[in-house]
Every structure is written in structure tokens, then in C-alpha cells.
């Protein structure tokens, strides 16, 4: 139960309805009345700008879906954000990530990845968030795997989904039909 009340469509003013329509007409194909949308509805102008970056991170980078979702799941795990975890666990499975990889990320154990790209994306994300910087070895490995453009886009996905997780945690945003907390094992 979030600290921000969900709004029914008839409770929204024209600007709020327009924001939901904009989101629904884009690649997400549905309005976003829970999750980050709860905050965006409080300020549709900011919501419009933020959702455009969200759409880029989900659908506009040069990374395949499984790599994008590995980055997002690793980020959601770090911040223990239940909505982000729930939504992107689902997306990750849909993108073909093996369930035991998702479980290992949730349990903070080392996953056995299906590709080098998944592994490198996971490792740089985790190292950045836990250490607040990345070693030369990790940086060079990521640069070699992805090249500069895709590496910048990877950092944007880590940053943007951290941004969203921080905001949702301020307001205790959780999924409507999923667990309202993500388990919190010790870091290993």
C-alpha cells in the first residue's frame, strides 16, 4: 500500500489523463497508474519528461531485452524495490532469462548466466551500486563487450532505474498483485 493514493481515471484532470494516454499510446501499450506513474501523476509535466527516459531505457537502447532486464533486475535488487522487482522479474522471464538466474539475483548469490553480455552487464551494475565506482578491470571488460555507445546506455539504465527505485521507495510503492516486499538476504 503506497503512501501516494492511486487515482482512478475519473479523478484525473485533463493533464493527468493526457499523460496516461501518452504512456498507453507508446511501447508500454498501457497506462501506468501504479509504480512510477503514481509520482508522475502528481506532476504530469515532470512525468512526461521522466517517462520519455523510461521508454528509452526499456525500448531504445542497443541492448537486447534480456540484457536490459538483467540490468534492471540487478538494480531493483540493490534498492530492494518491490514494484520494480516484480515488474522486471516478469519482463526478464519473458525476455528468456532463466528462472534460476532471476532467483540468484534476488538471493544475492552469483548467477550462472546464459551469455557473456548478461554476466558483464550484471557485474558492472552490481559493482557500481555496491562500491559507488567501478574498477579499471570491470570497466575495460564492459567496454570491450559493449563498446562506448552501448556502455553509456547501460549506465543510463542503471541510473534511471535507480532513480525510479529511490522515488518509489520514498513512497513505499508496491505491486497491486504481488508481494509488497522483496526478501532481503545479506550481501555476499
Amino acid at each position, binding site marked *: 500500500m503506497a*503512501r*501516494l493514493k492511486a487515482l482512478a481515471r475519473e479523478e484525473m484532470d485533463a493533464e493527468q489523463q493526457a499523460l496516461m494516454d501518452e504512456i498507453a499510446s507508446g511501447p508500454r501499450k498501457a497506462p501506468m497508474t501504479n509504480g512510477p506513474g503514481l*509520482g508522475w501523476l*502528481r*506532476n504530469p*509535466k*515532470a512525468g512526461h*519528461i*521522466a517517462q*520519455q*527516459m523510461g521508454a*528509452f531505457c526499456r525500448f*531504445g*537502447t542497443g541492448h537486447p531485452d534480456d540484457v536490459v532486464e538483467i540490468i534492471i533486475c540487478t538494480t531493483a535488487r*540493490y*534498492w*530492494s*524495490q518491490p514494484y520494480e522487482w516484480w515488474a522486471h522479474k516478469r519482463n526478464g522471464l519473458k525476455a528468456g532469462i532463466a528462472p534460476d538466474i532471476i532467483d540468484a539475483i534476488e538471493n544475492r548469490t552469483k548467477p550462472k548466466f546464459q551469455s557473456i553480455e548478461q554476466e558483464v552487464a550484471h557485474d*558492472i551494475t552490481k559493482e*557500481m*551500486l555496491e562500491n*559507488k*565506482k*567501478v574498477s579499471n578491470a570491470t*570497466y575495460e571488460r564492459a567496454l570491450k563487450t559493449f563498446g*562506448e*555507445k552501448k*556502455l*553509456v*546506455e547501460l*549506465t*543510463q539504465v*542503471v*541510473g*534511471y532505474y*535507480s*532513480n*525510479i*527505485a*529511490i*522515488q518509489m*521507495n*520514498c*513512497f*513505499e510503492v508496491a505491486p497491486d498483485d504481488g508481494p509488497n516486499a522483496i526478501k532481503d538476504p545479506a550481501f555476499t
Partner: protein
Amino acid sequence: MSRLKPMSDADMDASQTALRDAIQGVWKRSTGGPFDQWYLSPDMGLRANALTDYCRWQAKLESDVLETAILTTAAHWAQPYQWKTHVKNALDAGLSQDAIDAIAAKRPPIFATVEQSIAHDVTREILETHKLSAETYARAVTAFGEPVLVDLAAVVGWYASLAIQMNIFDVGAS
């Protein structure tokens, strides 16, 4: 000393030139800090520029409260460029050097206003513990109201994003 080379005007294609002009339009400069990264993916860069423009210039926060939140975020991530830039802004916005030094040292600062103090506490707690206690949330929502608190959370989130990206590319204070 960043891990990326700044892009020179001569190397830019049309979309990078458009991004440069958009950045220049908001910040009166177009290189350094968070900007050099954005040229590698100009469509991403335009969206990042719009979000940063919103947080810095349009969010519903007084400038001293805004700069308190940004400095606390920069201190958390130890991001040298963000720290240096926003120390200047914070002094201009009226924060005391003592408060700034305390933020840097992660000591409890003595702030001039209750709003600065709450903005600092919210920012530190959400970044360090990944959640906000009921008590901190209640103080913040009473002090700011819901719409302003939503913008405060947006600023902390987005400046954390900028700091994360800059730290991956080792962007220094320049």
C-alpha cells in the same frame, strides 16, 4: 580525468550537434560533467538533458532546499564533479560553509532552516537505507506537502542517476 574523451565539434554528426545546442541552451556550455557521456547516444542525451533541466530549474523546491538535496546526493556517491559544481550553487543559495562541510563529512549539519534539515535527512536516509521511516516521511510530508515531496524525491533520484553515470566514467571535478 574521465574515461571518455570529450567530443569535438568537428566529430559531431547532425544529431550530436542538435544535442550540443540543446545542452548549450539550458546550461550555457555543452561539455564536461554529465554532458560528454550523452553525445555517444544523442537520443538518450536529449532525454537526460530534459530531465536535468527540469530538476535543476523547474522543480517546485526553493534553491537552498534543492542544493541541500543535491549536495547530500553527491556526497553519498562521492561524485567529485557534482560536488564541486553544487558547492558553488549551494553557497549562492545561502547555505553556510559549515553546513556544506558537515554534509561532506557525513556529520549532522546545523542548518539555517527546518526545510534544509528535512531535505538532508530524507536524502541521506533513502540513499543509505533504501527506504524512508514512517517518522521521516511524516516530517517531510508535513513540511513540504505531497507535490513538493514528489519533486524532492525526483531530484534525489535523478541526481543519483547522474552521479552513477559519471562515476562509471570516472568524471572528475575538472
